[in-house]
């Protein structure tokens, strides 16, 4: 009998807990326009999010890009073990700040209802900036020069890949001649903007990405009358964060292994954090 009573009590508690959920479902139904009729399960009541919740994923994301860039420096500059340790130590400090910022950015994005934003591209750029500064301070002038040259080449290659991919996107719609392809390639290269192709991965992994919002004057002078009319009607614009995020993730190789120097720097940072917390 006691068990039966216990069960009934439990049912009652569940019923009471369902009140706000049901009421919310009704309210949502009343507000939703009829034509859309979304079919969404009502989320269970949750604790309000806070930036701390996103620290683990921010840590993972930031370290991924940090290791990528560290390996680039290692390949390009061949630092001595001491230099590598110095870069790893300074880098770890910069990384800690970035992890907090990224967790905060994700938190704010979630508050604004953007559930897809991870800030990958921003992290990558910020890490590249920070490490470039560290390379300048910690390596010899010759090594820093080599790094500068290689980063310039990397940017140029990225741009070349982006331009080629956009020309292909336009060509698929407008059937350009080889001369037109060359002209448009040169025009895009002259007027290049990074947000036209935030990630080459996007163009590689999605079959239906749209043509970026390129100014008409970069393309139209090379087109025939029919092509110009078609160009005007083509949907163009920015790729969504969601698409860019998914593309980056889908092509992302596994996080590179952690070198000994990086592990030492991370562990040292953890130890100093523990000491600070103890104080």
């Amino acid at each position, binding site marked *: 009998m006691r068990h039966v009573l216990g069960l009934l009590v439990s049912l009652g508690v569940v019923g009471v807990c369902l009140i706000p959920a049901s009421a919310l479902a009704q309210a949502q139904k009343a507000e939703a326009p009829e034509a859309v009729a979304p079919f969404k399960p009502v989320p269970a009541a949750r604790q309000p999010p806070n930036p701390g919740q996103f620290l683990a994923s921010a840590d993972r994301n930031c370290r991924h890009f940090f290791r990528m860039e560290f390996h680039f420096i290692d390949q390009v500059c061949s630092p001595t073990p001491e230099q590598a340790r110095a870069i790893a130590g300074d880098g770890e400090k910069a990384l800690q700040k970035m992890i907090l910022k990224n967790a905060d950015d994700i938190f704010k994005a979630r508050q604004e209802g953007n559930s897809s934003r991870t800030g990958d591209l921003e992290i990558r750029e910020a890490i590249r900036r920070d490490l470039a500064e560290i390379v300048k301070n910690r390596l010899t002038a010759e090594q820093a020069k080599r790094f500068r040259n290689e980063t310039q080449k990397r940017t140029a290659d990225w741009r070349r890949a982006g331009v080629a*991919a956009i020309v292909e996107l336009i060509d698929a719609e407008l059937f350009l001649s080889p001369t037109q392809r060359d002209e448009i390639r040169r025009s895009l290269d002259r007027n290049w903007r990074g947000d036209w192709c935030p990630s080459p991965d996007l163009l*590689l992994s999605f079959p*239906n990405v749209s043509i970026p919002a390129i100014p008409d004057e970069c393309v139209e002078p090379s087109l025939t009358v029919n092509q110009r009319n078609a160009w005007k009607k083509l949907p163009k614009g920015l790729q969504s964060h969601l698409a860019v995020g998914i593309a980056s993730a889908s*092509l992302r190789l596994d996080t590179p292994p952690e070198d000994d120097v990086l592990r030492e720097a991370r562990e040292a940072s953890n130890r100093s954090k523990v000491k600070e917390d103890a104080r």
Partner: protein
Amino acid sequence: MKGNTLAFLTLASIIVPARGQEGEAPLPQGIRKATAGQAAREDLETNFDRGLFGRIPATKPGSTPIAWITGEMARAQLAMQLTLKIDEVERLVPLGGGEKKKLRAAGEQDIRRFFDHIGEVKESLRLPSGEFARGRPVGTARTRLGIEYRAGLFGSGSYFAKVLATIVDETQAEVLRKAATERNRARRRTRALLMAQSWGDALGLDSEQRRKLFDLIDERIPLPERNGLGDYPYLIYQFNEIPRDQLRPIFNEMQWKTLTHHLDQIKPEQQKARVIELGFDLGEAEQAKPKPEAEQAK
């Protein structure tokens, strides 16, 4: 007291759902269920179209996309492409008015066939219960149609190509073939550039390593004629087929460790099945592969 609390809680559990239904239209249970099912089904079908055709993107950072591209809009875009395709042929070989009409009729038939095909695919995704399927088969069907759509409807195997073949003579056909080959070569180089850049970033390659990776991909991974952007599964399958000893010299130890860890997780047979499922033609790639040394010696 205990009994009263119990009675209240028990009553609450019964009353609450009833109160929750107050705002709904008083329909019999069966009809309400069917309506909800229909809404869900329409939602899934709409999502299918959206995933296939994409959307008109936002033009300013932070702003929301303007609208989804509907089937009608896609149809108009394809009609426009047909005009441009005929223009392209005319740029390469002279066409008479009657020939252009024939080509247009054939192209229009290709467009109709594509949309009929979409209808058939959607029908095949309908479950016996009448509901629209979910999960991987839907994603695969949509990606495959998306690749077909993006690759263009007037290539080899199309009515357009068949009619064109009856119009041009051998010399003109050679001119058209050369133009197609040149376009395909440009596309293959773009793929190789994108992949070298993407992996170059991921592995921390320097410019020389990226160049070697680009050359390798460009030389060793032929591109099937019919494909569009979004062919990463195909590229990774073909890349994984390249003997490791030919890849190894490009990378340093750490880079190699990261790369092979990634490649080791790819199951070649599964990846091949996936690539075929997505509609990539592996025949051309098989033919273009370098023959084993023993066979070459013969």
